């Protein structure tokens, strides 16, 4: 029953996200534009993300063959693979100045980033206050961890650029 409610929650979240993306991009204004160097970097980023996911899936396969079990639901491992790909791609693009497109409004992205963080933090904080860390929804916790990693990288990169400009 719990699994079914998680699956329904994910599907509803996905549908809402797709609808919001279509709405935001109705005039093709939300689509990021990149220059030729950025496109090249992003291509390499996708390549590294692909390798990272392949390596991760291979390790998980070997662990599966070895019948090594973890006290987590299997879907969390698949989700972790997706997040690893996102972190590798975004991290590579951030450090090579290809994360922000030419037409991106960084303030708007910061708001989306913050809203995603808050939406994922609510169930985690709720679980922590009621039952402790063991009952915290790991899916939201993983998203928060990803946001924390990417947010830190963006902040450090911003500070480095600011220092260089001075």
């Amino acid at each position, binding site marked *: 029953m719990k699994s079914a409610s998680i699956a329904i929650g994910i599907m509803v979240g996905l549908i809402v996200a797709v609808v919001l993306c279509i709405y935001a991009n109705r005039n093709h204004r939300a689509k990021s534009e990149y*220059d*030729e*160097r*950025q496109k090249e970097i992003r291509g390499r980023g996708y390549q590294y993300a692909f390798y990272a996911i392949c390596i991760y899936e291979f390790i998980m396969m070997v662990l599966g063959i070895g019948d090594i079990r973890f006290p987590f639901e299997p879907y969390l491992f698949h989700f972790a693979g997706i997040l690893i790909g996102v972190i590798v791609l975004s991290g590579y693009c951030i450090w090579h*100045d290809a994360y*922000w497109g*030419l037409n991106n409004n960084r303030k708007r992205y910061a708001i989306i980033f913050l809203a995603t963080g808050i939406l994922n933090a609510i169930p985690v904080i709720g679980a922590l206050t009621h039952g402790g860390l063991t009952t915290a929804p790991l899916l939201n916790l993983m998203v928060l961890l990803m946001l924390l990693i990417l947010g830190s990288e963006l902040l450090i990169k911003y500070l480095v650029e600011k220092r260089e400009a001075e």
Partner: protein
Amino acid sequence: MKNLRLKSARAAKDLSQEELAKLCNVSRQTINAIEKGDYNPTINLCIAICKALDRTLDELFWDEG
């Protein structure tokens, strides 16, 4: 290899990297990478830079060495 000719042509026009980048519709970091010799631009971008700086391809990008 650093492109000092591009840097001096930009300075002669009194343009910042950001301003030149906007004229060429690229990011400031791309102009910086070209000046530092970290990125080889395509011919289209070379032409856009030359037009923005009123220089020829030879003057900015031809390697005489």
